[in-house]
């Protein structure tokens, strides 16, 4: 309020000086409707404070949601955590009837996350193996070589891959990809690389780790390639010119002038893709085969952390079974959060520009 009074006094004295002796009189007459209206307003402190509070609440709700999820996961997994401890993540059991080792025994309420952690790691690794070279290739083509008229449509198409619901990928995998792998790819792999033990012909379905890895690769391709494109675009043009002026060919320019400068960000993009692959549920569940087993062969059936949760949640009748599933969920939650945070930091490091150092 006091500020408004001062400005009113200021106006008065200003018009005094300008208008001479009649100034004081005219000023009284000429207080316009707009000025009266504005002076009548309060300082709106309450409205401002309410608005401020609402916005803080909106921002906090995100933390609140994350905290609630974490709390639920921790609380509901206590039973399994107290029963199995850390061994949950590395131990197997002997089957009471056959004596063979097993990991997941809902009948006797004994659980171990080993096959699911293994499945998640194997499928994610395969996905990166296939997706990364392809994604970097797409990004290099789009930023450095693509004719301008083709750049937009091609970038749009790659981004569009990310918009397809994962259940559609799963369907496509079941009806197209898996038969294709079963008939044409797997026999070749078994013939050529069977000696490594990574490819055997025990599984006639075509489902399994390998099919999951391939479908995951297609699913993470858009995110990895679009982020790689972003960090490559962030490399200043002067760096490309510097390399070209030294007599570099186009490939040498891309290698030394672009990829070298963008590599931290590209690693970030890859890790972000890894984060997506680790948590991807639907498509993997549809093609991985869903058996709680650990196999060396990539063509064998298996399961992943996300897949087992999706598959068994509705059938988990015992408290222990449910608790074990939630503990797997907790582990997946923590790992993906860490992986994603790490990746974001690396992408920021390039696109925002950090103090440079020899790497």
């Amino acid at each position, binding site marked *: 309020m006091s500020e408004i009074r001062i400005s009113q006094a200021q106006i008065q004295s200003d018009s005094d000086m300008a208008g001479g002796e009649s100034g004081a009189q005219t000023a009284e007459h000429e207080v316009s409707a707009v000025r009266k209206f504005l002076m009548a307003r309060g300082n709106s402190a309450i409205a401002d404070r309410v608005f401020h509070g609402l916005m803080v609440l909106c921002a906090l709700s995100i933390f609140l949601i994350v905290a609630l999820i974490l709390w639920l996961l921790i609380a509901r997994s206590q039973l399994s955590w107290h029963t199995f401890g850390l061994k949950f993540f590395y131990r197997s059991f002997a089957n009471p009837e056959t004596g063979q080792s097993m990991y997941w025994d809902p009948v006797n309420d004994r659980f171990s996350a080993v096959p699911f952690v293994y499945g998640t790691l194997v499928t994610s690794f395969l996905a990166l193996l296939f997706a990364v070279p392809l994604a970097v290739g797409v990004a290099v083509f789009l930023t450095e070589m693509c004719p301008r008229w083709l750049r937009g449509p091609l970038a749009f198409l790659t981004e569009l891959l990310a918009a397809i619901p994962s259940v559609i990928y799963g369907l496509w995998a079941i009806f197209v990809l898996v038969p294709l792998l079963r008939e044409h790819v797997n026999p070749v792999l078994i013939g050529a690389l069977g000696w490594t033990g990574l490819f055997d012909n025990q599984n006639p379905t075509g489902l399994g780790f390998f099919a999951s890895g391939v479908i995951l690769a297609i699913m993470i391709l858009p995110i990895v390639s679009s982020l790689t494109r972003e960090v490559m675009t962030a490399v200043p043009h002067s760096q490309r010119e510097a390399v070209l002026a030294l*007599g570099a060919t186009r490939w040498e320019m891309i290698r030394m002038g672009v990829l070298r400068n963008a590599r931290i960000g590209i690693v970030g993009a890859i890790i972000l893709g890894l984060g997506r692959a680790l948590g991807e549920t639907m498509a993997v569940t549809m093609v991985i085969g869903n058996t709680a087993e650990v196999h060396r062969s990539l063509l064998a059936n298996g399961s992943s952390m996300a897949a087992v949760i999706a598959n068994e949640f509705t059938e988990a009748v015992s408290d222990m079974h449910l608790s074990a599933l939630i503990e797997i969920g907790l582990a997946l939650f923590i790992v993906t959060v860490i992986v994603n945070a790490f990746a974001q930091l690396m992408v920021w490091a390039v696109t925002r520009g950090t103090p440079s150092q020899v790497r």
Partner: protein
Amino acid sequence: MGVGIAVLNLNAWYGANHTLQDINLNIPANHVTALIGPSGCGKSTFVRCLNRMHETNPIARVTGTVRIGDLDIYRDCKPVQIRRRVGMVFQRPNPFPTMSIYDNVCAGLKLNGYTNRRALDEIVERSLKASALWDEVKDDLKKKSGASLSGGQQQRLCIARALAVDPEVLLMDEPASALDPVSTAKIEDLIFELKSQYTIVIVTHNMQQAARVAEKTGFFLNGRMVEFDSTHKIFTNPSDKRTEDYITGRFG
């Protein structure tokens, strides 16, 4: 040793923009030639035509003949080949931030597959001495990044990088315009030292700089070369009215 450059009927375009029109001149070997003129007059485009950097822009086009030594660079060779013989220093220092000082200097050699380590050590030392940077960086050649240096040091690093491939011609596109006066003076001293071994073409906005370092000066205006003569003549007794107006500060 440097070689001369002969330019015949050079025309260049950016899209529909005719940025260089019928340029003819002979740049003498082992001399410093300065190109002056107001912004947008085509002098930068001109030097970029001398190592075919102009055509890295997809909308750019060039016609005419440029001879560097005996080589007709638009007919006898590919762009990558001529760029290995013509060094270039840009307006803004552009060292490679992810490389050490050492790797920055020998980037051009490593790029082309030159791996003799002992020779590389010598070349790095020689190039950094030639660019007057050696004493300031010799203790952390492999420890510090090229981007950790000051602006003036970075520009001398870029000069060392250009010199390391032992070019015949050194093109400098406003090499000191982003630097403070002390660094500028160092770069100018350097240019003076280097001309015994290289043919140097320098684009500059700074007429005093042209007068200080160059024996020959060319004045560009609106895509044409108005006058090309000895620096002394250009600055004391120009033959063209437009040159006189420009150097006396009546426009530009």
